[in-house]
């Protein structure tokens, strides 16, 4: 049977979660239990069978001291051990004690521990033959620990452990059970005979081992139920003493929940022995030994199993760490060139694009998306741009999160359910909240078939009489379901690599921002210097030229009669030179102002601007006959007066270089690309040698001889400067005597925020 996983009923879970199983109030009948008040050293609570076990009346046990019950030697040993830290951690072997008489059933292993203000002594009846073989288990374990190094993989190691633990305990079946993040468990290794069915690979819902049971497994790492059908032995207090229920968390003989015994019976197991597998103080899994018939495990064997399992936990940790480390090394080898590649680019989008071939391998993703300044780039198997933006908004709404990793995206973000097949795993990094830049990796859905040990939707069944008493599942029939909307989980190494990647990228972005800030500061400093320079030029250089010019004029007009023809000629040269120098200075000033004046962006109608520029030129009486051909022109975004200067300079240029033509023809038209408007000015003038076209737009560059065409060589440099400040380009085509076409482009969306244009 296949089904989507239905939700586990929460009320049922809670009911089971709330049962105070550590305060069972009874023990299993394999021995007796005494609770000693540490203040007066007397027994205040005892299991009902303590009298029988100890060969005296229960009333005589209650109120007695351990010394009175077990003799001075045992009492001294208890006192000694009670100062030991082991005593507080769990049941510790005190010694053997036998009451008078004969037969094995009168010999007990005495175990002691201290918990919640009580010294708890447990007497466990020895198993048949146990007295002879306590050391054997320890010898066996030494050999096993040596062999533990041999299995190569984690799976082999677990299979080895299951096999050897079955050998140690003699149980019919040993399962190694591993918890996932939600405390659902899976049987990952098994060793068994034919007495019990295989549970290998079965999943069990978290509710099978409720929260407080897991907590007990964490505290008390061994738990034996020697006979699932036992009758609990109640714990009694001394008459007249009001005792709080005894906390049996660490007791060996603690009676388990009736629900659990029923569960065992439903499973067909007569005895169970569990050993906790710990990792960093948390429950990682369980070794669960089952026997069809009741079976006891001697204390020494249990201790050996505990030691073996502890070594197994360490081995597992070491192996997983080694595997993680190896994966980290592999990923690190990818990360290094990725970071180096990113560092060569100013912008994240460009940097990522340059390292695109490594991007997915870095975390083992199927796809990725990069978002920066509202731009999106996708790689591999990624959702479409609209969905990436939707995801980014969702991530934004989650607040400041550097990293988010999920392998069940739709569970966190239901909108993603619609495309779960392509994207179920998501690993998102926030790079810069200010620029809302992110790197997101995606993983495809991996449809997983999970076999449950029984229907996980029905972990517990209510009694026909009503919900007051809970029953565990009755069926352990295999129950298969299809897990949808899940991707392969991100491993710790992958997440760690992503985190390192983020640190590197943030570092690069910050350095980039710093560089930019530095550049912009340098730029504004240069601008200030230029401003000072132009001021100096304007005030200090203009004055002497004005004086030369002024006195030369005065000399000519007032004292001209004193000069001969040659002297007058010289004077003309002085006048001409000073006029030219003065114009140069004025042009330099105009040019530098053009670079510094703030651009005021508005919508500029070029079909109004170009005629305006033509009117200016026509106003010059020197203008010859010119045929103006103006095509349809667009509206552009830019600074009105600056653009007028551009158009004016280009048209003036065309007028100037068509000078020798009887009929000059000057055309202006525009073209459009998806991102730019391009304006062309073509003339039928003298043209230029295309070899020199790069020099056209340089300052004071002239392609023509001095006498041929006047001009300060600054018009086209100004054009280039203004257009560049708008984010556009200028270029020219021409051939000698074949006319010229000058063109400039303006972006449709100018980015005046760029420091170079600011």
């Amino acid at each position, binding site marked *: 049977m296949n089904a989507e996983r239905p939700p586990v009923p929460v009320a049922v879970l809670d009911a089971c979660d709330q049962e105070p199983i550590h305060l069972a109030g009874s023990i299993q009948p394999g021995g007796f239990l005494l609770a000693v008040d540490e203040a007066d050293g007397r027994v205040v609570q005892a299991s009902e069978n303590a009298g029988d076990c100890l060969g005296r009346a229960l009333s005589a046990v209650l109120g007695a001291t351990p010394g009175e019950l077990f003799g001075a030697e045992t009492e001294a040993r208890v006192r000694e051990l009670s100062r030991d830290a082991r005593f507080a951690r769990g049941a510790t072997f005190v010694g053997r004690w036998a009451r008078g008489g004969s037969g094995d059933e009168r010999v007990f292993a005495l175990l002691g521990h201290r918990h919640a203000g009580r010294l708890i002594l447990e007497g466990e009846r020895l198993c048949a033959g146990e007295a002879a073989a306590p050391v054997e288990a320890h010898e066996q374990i030494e050999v096993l620990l040596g062999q533990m190094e041999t299995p190569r993989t984690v799976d082999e190691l677990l299979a080895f452990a299951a096999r050897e633990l079955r050998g140690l305990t003699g149980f019919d079946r040993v399962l190694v059970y591993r918890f996932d993040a939600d405390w659902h468990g899976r049987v990952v290794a098994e060793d068994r005979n034919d007495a019990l069915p295989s549970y290998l690979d079965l999943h069990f819902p978290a509710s099978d081992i409720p929260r407080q049971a897991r907590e007990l497994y964490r505290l008390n790492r061994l738990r034996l139920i020697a006979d699932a059908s036992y009758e609990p032995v109640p714990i009694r207090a001394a008459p007249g003493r009001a005792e709080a229920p005894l906390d049996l968390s660490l007791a060996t003989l603690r009676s388990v929940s009736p629900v659990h015994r029923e569960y065992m019976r439903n499973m067909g197991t007569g005895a169970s022995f569990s050993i906790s597998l710990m990792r960093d103080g948390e429950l990682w899994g369980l070794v669960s030994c089952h026997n069809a018939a009741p079976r006891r495990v001697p204390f020494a064997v249990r201790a050996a199993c505990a030691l073996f399992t502890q070594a197994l936990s360490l081995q597992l940790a070491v192996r997983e760490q080694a595997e993680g480390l190896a994966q980290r090394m592999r990923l690190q080898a990818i990360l290094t060139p990725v970071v180096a590649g990113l560092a060569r680019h100013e912008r994240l989008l460009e940097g990522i694009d340059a390292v695109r071939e490594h991007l997915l391998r870095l975390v083992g993703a199927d796809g990725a998306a990069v978002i920066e300044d509202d731009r999106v780039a996708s790689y591999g198997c990624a959702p479409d741009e609209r969905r990436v933006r939707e995801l980014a908004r969702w991530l934004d709404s989650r607040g400041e999160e550097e990293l988010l990793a999920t392998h069940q995206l739709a569970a966190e973000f239901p909108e993603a359910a619609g495309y779960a097949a392509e994207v179920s795993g998501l690993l998102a990094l926030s790079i810069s909240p200010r620029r809302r830049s992110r790197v997101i990796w995606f993983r495809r859905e991996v449809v997983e078939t999970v076999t449950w040990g029984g229907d996980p939707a029905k972990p517990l069944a209510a009694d026909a009489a009503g919900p007051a008493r809970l029953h565990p599942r009755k069926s352990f029939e295999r129950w298969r379901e299809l897990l949808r909307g899940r991707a392969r989980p991100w491993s710790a190494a992958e997440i760690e690599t992503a985190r390192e990647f983020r640190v590197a990228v943030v570092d690069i972005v910050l350095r980039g921002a710093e560089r930019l800030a530095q550049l912009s500061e340098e730029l504004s400093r240069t601008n200030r210097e230029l401003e000072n320079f*132009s*001021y100096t030029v*304007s*005030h*200090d250089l*203009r*004055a002497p*030229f*004005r*004086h030369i*010019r*002024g*006195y*030369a*004029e*005065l000399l000519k007009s007032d004292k001209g009669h004193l000069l001969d023809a040659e002297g007058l000629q010289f004077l003309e040269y002085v006048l001409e030179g*000073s*006029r030219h120098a*003065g*114009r140069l*200075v*004025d042009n330099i*000033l105009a040019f530098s*102002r053009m670079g510094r*004046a703030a651009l005021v962006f508005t919508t500029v109608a070029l079909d109004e601007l170009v005629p305006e520029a033509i009117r200016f030129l026509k106003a010059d009486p020197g203008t010859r006959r010119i045929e103006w051909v103006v095509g349809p022109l667009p509206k552009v975004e830019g600074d009105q007066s600056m653009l007028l200067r551009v158009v004016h300079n280009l048209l003036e240029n065309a007028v100037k270089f068509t000078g020798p033509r009887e009929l000059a023809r000057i055309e202006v038209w525009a073209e459009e690309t998806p991102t730019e408007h391009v304006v062309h000015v073509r003339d039928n003038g003298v043209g230029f040698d295309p070899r020199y076209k790069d020099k056209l737009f340089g300052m004071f560059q002239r392609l023509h001889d001095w006498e041929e065409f006047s001009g300060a060589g600054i018009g086209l440099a100004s054009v280039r400067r203004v257009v560049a400040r708008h984010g556009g380009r200028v270029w020219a085509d021409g051939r000698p005597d074949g006319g010229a076409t000058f063109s400039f482009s303006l972006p449709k969306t100018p980015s005046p925020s760029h420091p170079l244009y600011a």
Partner: protein
Amino acid sequence: MLKPILLVEDNPRDLDLSLRALARTRLANEVVVTRNGEEAWHYLTRQGVYADRPRGNPAVVLLDLKLPKIDGVELLDLIRKEPELENLPVVMLTASREQTDVARSYALGVNAYVVKPIEFVDFLEAIRDLGVFWAVINEPPPGSVRLKA
């Protein structure tokens, strides 16, 4: 009797050229020359060496922007804050077309702003126009309000 024109100019060549240009305008107004802002202020407020001059404001002040001691903009500020001089026409003469200077001068209430042209003929024309406009044509009647630029 015509009111004089007050010319404030520190550069001797510019001063000479300005005087020659004014001479060519054939204006009958006397031209009073001061060489820095402080001296001009003394003239306008009849202090120091000008303590004994007869009362009355000049027809127009032709004021260079860059001056020793008190510069052109500072002097303009002083003039506009002095009730008796409030309506005195001031023309800023300058070698600079710097926007900050222009903006400051206009903010302080200059009546005209002239960038000294390099071409002498242009300079001549500018001086003549200014002199004629402010000294003859545009002499404000008493109590009239200063023209805002």
